[in-house]
């Protein structure tokens, strides 16, 4: 596999206090679809779709949002090369369902999907779901690492060639290629949780979807260490990406580190990008919101033309793993 060019991606969720959305257009999905298509046209690798179970931040008159994973699935048949990366919150949602939903998203997009895992740290998310108390950051991130672990095991629980359709014996699957995961983890309230498996969904198209984690202001980077070690892609704020990238790559040398930067700022200049690349940063996520995405992506590509390269029409069959330069996913249970 060739070395990937500098990754440019866009976060198209409305930015609180910046993007004013028109509810009639926004909740039909039209604006999100247009943003994804514009990002695709401009050559972005993927779009991020934020989500949480807490009270939505106000964005114009509509302090609302749509479920990100389903929006991503809905975008699948309406796009051709760009990948979609929704957020899944690990604190209240069942780990088994996060495994099946993400695997299904990969099937729905022909391998053009990733998933960003993050805990729900707010009290209002706990009140909305009503099952568990509000967690603090450290145990919630520790649980996130466990969730990533069990989700990866669920993805592995069907070997790629489990479906055999053997007419001679009447067997649809070779059950020796299906695996109980028998996972035991610790939740954010220090209680054990278990998942039996196998998944109900066959192995995802990519084997494993690229797993994203992001360092947000609500927790110190150290709290994320376990999750970072399990991740493929780590998003860091542009303001501190230099020192943080060094730490992240020390914990997980194969991580793809991306800097998250406000698309309206002029912070992206060739010298800064060159310094980022020196410490191992592989690309940027532009905080574009849902509007003017194409312009922002093209502007970023124009800053670093020699890194981005000229290939603006990636193979329509290319998976997100391939676009990020990740190696093929291995299966822990195969040949075991």
């Amino acid at each position, binding site marked *: 596999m060739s070395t990937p060019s500098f990754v440019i991606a866009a976060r198209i969720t409305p930015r609180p206090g910046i993007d004013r959305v028109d509810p009639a257009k926004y909740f039909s999905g039209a604006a999100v679809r247009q943003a994804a298509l514009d990002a695709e046209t401009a050559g972005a690798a993927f779009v991020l779709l934020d989500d949480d179970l807490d009270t939505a931040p106000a964005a114009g008159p509509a302090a609302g949002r749509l479920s990100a994973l389903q929006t991503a699935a809905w975008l699948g048949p309406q796009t051709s090369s760009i990948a979609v990366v929704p957020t899944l919150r690990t604190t209240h949602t069942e780990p088994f369902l996060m495994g099946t939903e993400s695997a299904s998203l990969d099937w729905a997009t022909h391998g053009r999907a990733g998933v960003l895992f993050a805990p729900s740290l707010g009290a209002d998310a706990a009140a909305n779901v*009503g099952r568990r108390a509000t967690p603090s950051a450290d145990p919630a991130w520790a649980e996130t690492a466990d969730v990533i672990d069990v989700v990866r095991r669920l993805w592995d629980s069907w070997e790629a060639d489990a479906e055999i359709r053997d007419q001679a014996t009447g067997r649809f699957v070779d059950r020796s290629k299906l695996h109980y995961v028998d996972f035991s983890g610790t939740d954010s309230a220090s209680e054990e949780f278990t998942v039996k498996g196998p998944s109900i969904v066959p192995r995802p198209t990519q084997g494993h979807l690229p797993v994203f984690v992001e360092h947000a202001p609500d927790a110190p980077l150290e709290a994320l260490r376990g999750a970072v070690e399990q991740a493929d892609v780590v998003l860091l704020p542009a303001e501190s990406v230099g020192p943080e990238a060094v730490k992240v790559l020390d914990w997980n040398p194969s991580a793809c580190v991306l800097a998250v930067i406000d698309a309206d700022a002029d912070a992206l200049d060739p010298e800064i990008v060159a310094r980022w690349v020196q410490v191992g940063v592989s690309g940027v996520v532009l905080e574009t919101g849902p509007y003017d995405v194409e312009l922002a992506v093209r502007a970023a590509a124009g800053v670093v033309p020699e890194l981005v390269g000229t290939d603006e029409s990636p193979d329509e069959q290319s998976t997100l793993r391939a676009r990020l330069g990740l190696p093929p996913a291995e299966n822990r249970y195969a040949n075991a």
Partner: protein
Amino acid sequence: MSSSPRRVHLAAHFPGVNNNTIWSDPRSESHIAVDSFIHMAQTAERGLMDFLFLAEGLRLREMNGKIYDLDVMGRPDTLTVLSAVAGATERIGLAGTLTATFHEPYELARQFATLDHLSGGRAAWNVVTSPDAFTGENFRRGGYLPYPQRYERAEDFIDAARTLWESWPASAQDADDTAGAYEHRSEFFDISGRFDVPRSPQVHPVIFQAGDSDSGREFAAGSADVIFTRHSELEDGKAFYKDTKSRLAKYGRAEDDLRIYPGVSYVLGDTDADAAGRAREQAYAQHSGATAIATLERVWNTDLSSFDPDGPLPDFDPVLDGPEVSQGRVKHVKDPVATAQRWREIAQAENLSIRDLVVRESPRFAFVGSADTVARKMNQYIQERAADGFILIPTVVPGGLDEFVDTVIPRLQEMGVYPDSYPSDDPALRATMELNEYRPATEWSQARADVRAAATNGQEA
């Protein structure tokens, strides 16, 4: 009655994880790939059907302590698939089965509201329950719900979801800082806050209930828009229809407010004789030797792998005191010893092997015949009020619906009982099914409370 004929409604069930689905057919393709779902949805849409219906899986079935390997198995997540299909279709309704036992109202309500928004109002939720520890092993809470409480939680779950769906003002333009504020405190849920999805086109997705039991019918009369039932013979269907619809008035509902859709299989042919021959071939394709043995094992409740499917039935009785050999599937045989006895007698009298007997005793295809015959038989069920519509269950993915749409629907249209276009320009499923607009959550719960109070007073009087 001399009024104009009732129209026939049709819908499509994506083939399920059981031996009704024939994976050995050379035309059978992936039942996981999104293109298979899109193919079947677009075929149903071409046939002006009401909706595509998906079941839900939360654990692979087991037999004799091992994963059951003879049927099609595995399926993608219901709501993820329906969201993708919404992006590739314009009119077809999108009906998803999700259990009220292992999901939570806040999460499910926002997922359905999202689907309803993204599809222009085409969402439907088939509410089921799954209160068993076997499924629970994949969830944090395990098996936690006593079986008698399964409908109580489901009913409360629907009320909570409806409360969330109504929590925004009619127009999101009018939303302010209080939009989405809600509270639902009950025996099963204690949730409050602000719902984050504005009112969707239908406000409430169409609610289905699947199940034929007395409590299931009452649950449907008090909480659902559609009842997904098993197919039965015409007279039994009429009795079911009459009984179920008679339960509606006391909830303040009219006959048309709850629709009865049996799930039906079908086999078509150029002639009735041709179709009968195909039905026999399909029944054998659905019951390989290994499947026939497994079918017997579920009745005998013991390992019969040493038996020859082309040989005679076991001469001993079923095991009644052992653990269940089959896990993750609904039991249909209520009296195994009597069933085994009857099967042995039939096999002996007709000189049948195990496989022949299992094919003979398997559920019959509901409608078998030429396109004209099937159209006439289906129409009879509608006109005589044994059903309001049918959910067609094809046997092959993804093309199993094509022949029906190409041959039977034109016959129904010629008979004047099936439309030539969708009835409304509005893609909402409520418009397609010609259902009323949503009924507010408080009206549903008040009607049920009144019915129960009246029943209690009646008992005391």
